[in-house]
């Protein structure tokens, strides 16, 4: 008994401050939001109404369509970033001229605020005055209503998100690729592996830890995205680009605090259900390589 006491280097009291912060500002809000999500709440009185808010959330098309939109948005942006950033990183780690300049140029979009990017792209996609449509009309004769047509609106925002968010993934990939020991490549080339074989058999497996971080970060970022969509379409036209976060925001603005809290619980559950198993799976993959 005394022996274990001597062995513990730090007292438990060291943990208490952060534990208190965690309990008060994280765990308690999560638990109380579970209660408020089952009420009609106006900040003063909360009337319990069971699972009515959840039922409403999943039956009203104005809200329920946000779930598939969120999933599509998260997986599409994450997938595109993982693939595109990999090739850009390969290019930027190869022996090319003015590498430093190109690397900064690739990182540049990430320095601009999301609102500014959103407004700029929304204007470029304007059906009559936008730069993109002026060019498209010059070539094909008729324009594309990128953000006004429900079948293209979400994809237009996804493309903007990828343009803006790609650079972070590129930076992580570059760090990962540069930490790969050159001797692997030498060994592979002695064995007669060509450029493509070196990428698939040396770079790709050894960059997996970096890739895992990118997948997790971009996927969670995509699931809780709000600012870009709000700046570009506000969830419209109709509900074609509404995601969970924008729906929650709208319900809050309408004064439906209970319903909005229910939306937040749905988002918490959705992110947890996707992120934890994914993390687990990716960790397994990393260990298998080792």
């Amino acid at each position: 008994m005394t022996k274990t006491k001597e062995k513990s280097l730090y007292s438990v009291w060291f943990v208490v401050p952060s534990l208190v912060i965690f309990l008060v500002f994280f765990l308690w809000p999560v638990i109380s939001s579970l209660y408020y999500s089952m009420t009609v709440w106006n900040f003063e009185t909360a009337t319990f109404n069971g699972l009515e808010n959840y039922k409403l959330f999943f039956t009203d098309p104005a809200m329920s369509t946000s779930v598939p939109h969120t999933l599509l948005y998260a997986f599409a942006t994450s997938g595109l970033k993982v693939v595109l950033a990999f090739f850009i990183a390969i290019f930027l780690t190869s022996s090319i001229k003015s590498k430093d300049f190109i690397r900064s140029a690739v990182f540049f979009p990430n320095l601009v605020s999301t609102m500014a990017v959103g407004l700029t792209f929304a204007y470029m996609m304007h059906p009559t005055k936008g730069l993109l449509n002026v060019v498209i009309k010059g070539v094909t004769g008729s324009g594309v209503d990128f953000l006004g047509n429900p079948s293209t609106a979400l994809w237009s925002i996804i493309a903007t998100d990828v343009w803006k968010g790609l650079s972070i993934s590129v930076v992580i990939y570059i760090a990962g690729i540069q930490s790969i020991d050159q001797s692997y490549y030498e060994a592979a080339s002695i064995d007669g592996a060509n450029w493509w074989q070196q990428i698939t058999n040396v770079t790709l497996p050894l960059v997996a830890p970096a890739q895992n971080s990118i997948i997790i970060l971009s996927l969670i970022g995509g699931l809780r995205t709000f600012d870009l969509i709000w700046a570009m379409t506000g969830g419209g036209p109709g509900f074609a680009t509404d995601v969970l976060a924008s729906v929650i925001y709208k319900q809050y603005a309408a004064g439906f605090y209970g319903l909005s809290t229910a939306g937040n619980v749905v988002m918490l559950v959705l992110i947890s259900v996707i992120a934890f198993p994914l993390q687990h799976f990716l960790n397994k993959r990393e260990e298998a390589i080792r």
Partner: protein
Amino acid sequence: MKKLFALALVCALLASMAASTALAEGKPFDGVTITFWGGQAEYNDGTKAVIAAAEEALGLHVEVEINPGGSEGDNILKTRIASNDLPDFLCYNSGSKLYDLNPSRCFLDIKDWDLVSRVDDAFLSSVTIDGAVYGLPQSSTQAGAIIYYKPDYEELGLEVPHTWADFVDNCAKLKEAGKTPVYFCGGETWTTQVLFLGDYYNIQAAYPTFAEEYTEGKAKYADIPAATRSWTKYEDLVDYLNEDKSAATVADGNFAIGVGDATHWFILTQQLPMIVAEAEDQSQIGVFGVPGDNPENHGLTVWEPMSFYVNKDSQNIDAVKAFLDFYYSEDMLNLYFETYGANGPSCIKGYELPESVCDAVRVDMQQYFDEGKTTPALEYVSPIKGTACEQLTVAVGLGQMSGAEAAAAYDEDCKKSAVQLGYNWD
């Protein structure tokens, strides 16, 4: 103890000095700063002129914070109410949106103020909840109507339509003549609701008990033909809209109607001063109500103006009251309407708008008021309004959804609002 007494004496001396200097200059509120929160439309040139005059006459200073508007603005206001951080007075909607704020908790009941007796009853009923009066009209009334460019009508020899069929006919003729018959601002979604909301005159004409039954959850848009019509009217217009209908903004609309790039625009007449400012001459701009099916009964759906509300816990209620008394003096009303223009007839009893106000208000809109063919918009007679209304009107306006589908979806949306407001609709 001695020190404390001396301190009190000094304070009293200073206070009396301050009071006497203020009295000497005739500025009772010298050095008082009152805070105000309101949108760009309320803090317009007219308001600015009146505030400047009030600062001169009363000595107080008005500190202004701008409301970004829309749901952003609602969020800010609701957060500030919840955190007891309201300005001394503010501008916000009257009618159903006032209900959402739970006003007894945050706003002063002003029913004892003399000013209240000067305001007409239609306005007062939109700011009275449980016998308490909370607001005073920031501006004049306005309508949800069709603002049009008169030279196009003269050029093609068209008449102001008194039925919806005639209106669509006019649109067809305008399109044939190479004009853009109707302007649609999908870039600012709230504007797209105006056709639907402004059609309420026709619903209540055909179905007088609609508002009551709707509030009780008995009348549905999808079931009552006159109400479904408000949604299907969008379908009739799909072919007559501007090319950038999905992205156009209100500023684009002001310009398009002002210079005649488009002929009609379903919009609140609060845009009139800005449209007239774009036009070559104010007489080129006209207004008519959303037509129904009965040519004998073509009326106007009227909105009450935004209101001034006073923070119940303000330290400066006296100064705010003095400012508002000043705001509603005849001279200041004239100054306001001459500087900014009017959105419709005034809701101050016995007050006549100055000659400088445009014909669209003093002739076109006034005739509906004179004939008694006006009705308050649904949001002033029922506390329930679906929150997805503007998303639905955009979708049906752009032809992405049928009118019947939108009507049914809106019924569901209203049910959601009703449940959240504590109504039992099952």
